[in-house]
């Protein structure tokens, strides 16, 4: 035999070995009329790498612990009920997939935070196409890595903030993918604490008690094309660095302390293509620095953007500000941020050289927004002739508003976003 042939045979032998592994893995059925009537007994019978098919039916088996790498799938959405007492599924092994289950009524408790599906210290866990109803926490991942949470429907009707859990709760994890989930009625829709290198993509998070999305100490993440509507306080990104936020929609977050998005103590972030629509405050920035914002839309908000004087070196360019009551406001006289080439629908300047950029700088901070910031009841006088006059004269000769709070190149026409 030639050397070449030996390599060929060796190679095919290795391939065969790999295939053999697959041949050895079994499919186990659990459910009424199957060889394993309970899920627990079926899990006990499983070897690593087996597939466990749970057939249609109602299962009340308390806490199910998955401690070996198995592929669990439901046939006809079997219902796993935690009877408001137990954590339904606890994943304590890596390489587990959970698919097509209906999980409901997990136990409640703020001491051990029981969840519908809770992942403990595992790698490569996939949770997809499940329906989670009325659980305390929906999906809970702690110390997870490379986990995927995809296309789940997570719904609860929790009443009080202090006695409720989050829809998707991730803690001390890395490289997660959270995609295409719908979350409703939890405390926070998606909660991130100490989670890094993760992506949140195409989720719908609405009607949650507190935040649609809550970021704490989670660096190097991205959330893209999500839809947040009517959450108690919008979306909060806090104490975090290097987060990318793109093409999200923040809509109808109404109330005194509600913001489309709230940024607190964050830095080096990038925002693009986001839409802030009909919020009391579209975007609130406090103590945030080096954030680049471009091509976002602020439409019909009470306050488009509130940028506190504690923010520095942010660049806000090429955004559309349309039909907001106040486009921008701040709480101090110091301005260390740059506004450039935005479109402001309240701009009244002209463009003689027809280059699309207004020849007169625009001061987005109206006098009245400063007055209202200091003296909120004055809002009642808004749009009266007197206040319009004050605003007009302030625009010509700024005295109360910061001199350098200015967009030197205001666009004449809105950007097509």
């Amino acid at each position, binding site marked *: 035999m030639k050397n070449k042939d030996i390599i060929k045979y060796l190679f095919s032998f290795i391939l065969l070995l790999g295939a053999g592994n697959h041949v050895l893995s079994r499919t186990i059925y659990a459910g009424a009329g199957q060889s394993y009537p309970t899920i627990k007994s079926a899990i006990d019978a499983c070897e690593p790498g087996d597939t466990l098919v749970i057939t249609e039916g109602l299962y009340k088996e308390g806490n199910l612990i998955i401690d070996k790498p198995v592929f669990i799938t439901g046939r006809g959405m079997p219902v796993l009920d935690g009877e408001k007492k137990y954590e339904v599924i606890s994943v304590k092994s890596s390489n587990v997939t959970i698919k097509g289950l209906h999980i409901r009524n997990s136990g409640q408790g703020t001491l051990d935070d029981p969840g519908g599906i809770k992942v403990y210290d595992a790698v490569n866990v996939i949770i997809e196409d499940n329906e989670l109803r009325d659980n305390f926490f929906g999906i809970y991942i702690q110390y997870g890595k490379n986990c995927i949470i995809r296309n789940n429907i997570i719904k609860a009707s929790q009443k009080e903030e202090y006695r409720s859990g989050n829809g998707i709760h991730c803690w001390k994890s890395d490289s997660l993918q959270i995609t295409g989930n719908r979350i409703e009625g939890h405390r926070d829709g998606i909660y991130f604490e100490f989670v890094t290198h993760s992506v949140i993509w195409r989720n719908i998070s609405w009607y949650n008690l507190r935040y649609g999305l809550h970021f704490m100490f989670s660096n190097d993440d991205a959330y893209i094309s999500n839809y947040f509507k009517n959450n108690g306080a919008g979306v909060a990104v806090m104490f975090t660095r290097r987060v990318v936020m793109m093409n999200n929609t923040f809509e109808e977050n*109404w*109330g*005194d302390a509600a913001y489309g998005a709230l940024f607190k103590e964050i830095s080096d972030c990038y925002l693009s293509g986001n839409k802030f629509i*009909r*919020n*009391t*405050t579209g975007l609130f920035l406090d103590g945030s620095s080096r954030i680049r914002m471009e091509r976002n839309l602020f439409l*019909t*908000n*009470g*306050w488009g953007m509130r940028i506190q004087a504690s923010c520095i070196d942010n660049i806000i360019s090429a955004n559309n500000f*349309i*039909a907001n*009551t*106040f486009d921008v406001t701040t709480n101090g006289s110091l301005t260390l941020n740059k506004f450039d080439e935005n479109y402001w*629908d309240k701009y009244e300047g002209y463009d003689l050289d027809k280059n699309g950029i207004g020849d007169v700088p625009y001061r987005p901070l109206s006098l009245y927004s400063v007055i209202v910031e*200091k*003296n*909120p*009841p*004055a*809002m*009642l*006088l*808004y*749009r*009266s*002739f*007197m*206040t*319009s006059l004050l605003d007009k004269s302030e625009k010509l000769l700024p005295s109360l508003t910061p001199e350098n709070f200015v967009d030197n190149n205001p666009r004449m026409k809105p950007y097509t976003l």
Partner: protein
Amino acid sequence: MRKVLKYVSLDILKNNIVFAYAIMLALFSWSAFGLEDNASKGILTVLNIILLTVPLVSVLFATIYVYNSSEFIELLVSHPVKRGMIWKALFTGLSSSLALAYLLGAGIPILLFADFYTAVMMIVTGIFLSVIFVAIAFLSSILTRDKAKGIGISVLLWLYFSLLFDGLVLFLFFQFADYPIEKAVVVLSALSPVDLCRILILLHLDVSAMLGHTGAVFKNFFGTDWGLILSFTILTLWVVIPFAISLKKFKRKDL
């Protein structure tokens, strides 16, 4: 009454000013909605027209009209008609024609361009403002026999309600900034019909902002059904009280 009303209405129609007023309003509003690139800015322009021009035209036209028809009134008094009836007919004729002019001039474009609830609120408050300022005109024209003085009083009242009042309230805001004055402000706003109308429209126009900090206080008050009923009751009182005083004075007046 019907006969007197008929004569008054015919006379107002013959006098083309109300027509011109309607056309002016229409031109204003159509151009406001046509020139601005979005409807909400058009609404703001029209809002300013409602809050400034409508009261001004109503109060001036009504005052001058009442003075000019003094001979007609004297003539009617010599006939077997009740005095109160003459005054009421005159008031109904004037206010309905001015309200109609507003409805046709500004109402149609508003209804077409603004969203329905805002539009309804703007139309209703505009009509109220027309009628309220006709009532104020009746009061000021009965206070004095001197035409120049009467018109002067009317214009001053308009200035007070449209411009001065807001300035005073703003001044109070700054003086009492450290106190919880939200509730007091709600009461204060009832003292000017122009302000009350502005707030009612504001709650629809700037709904997002009004849901903010103190806005919530106002929204909870004016935005509820009871708040609306109360606001419109106050607006009605603004019609009834000045007119009732003028009616009482007219009945006893030596013409």
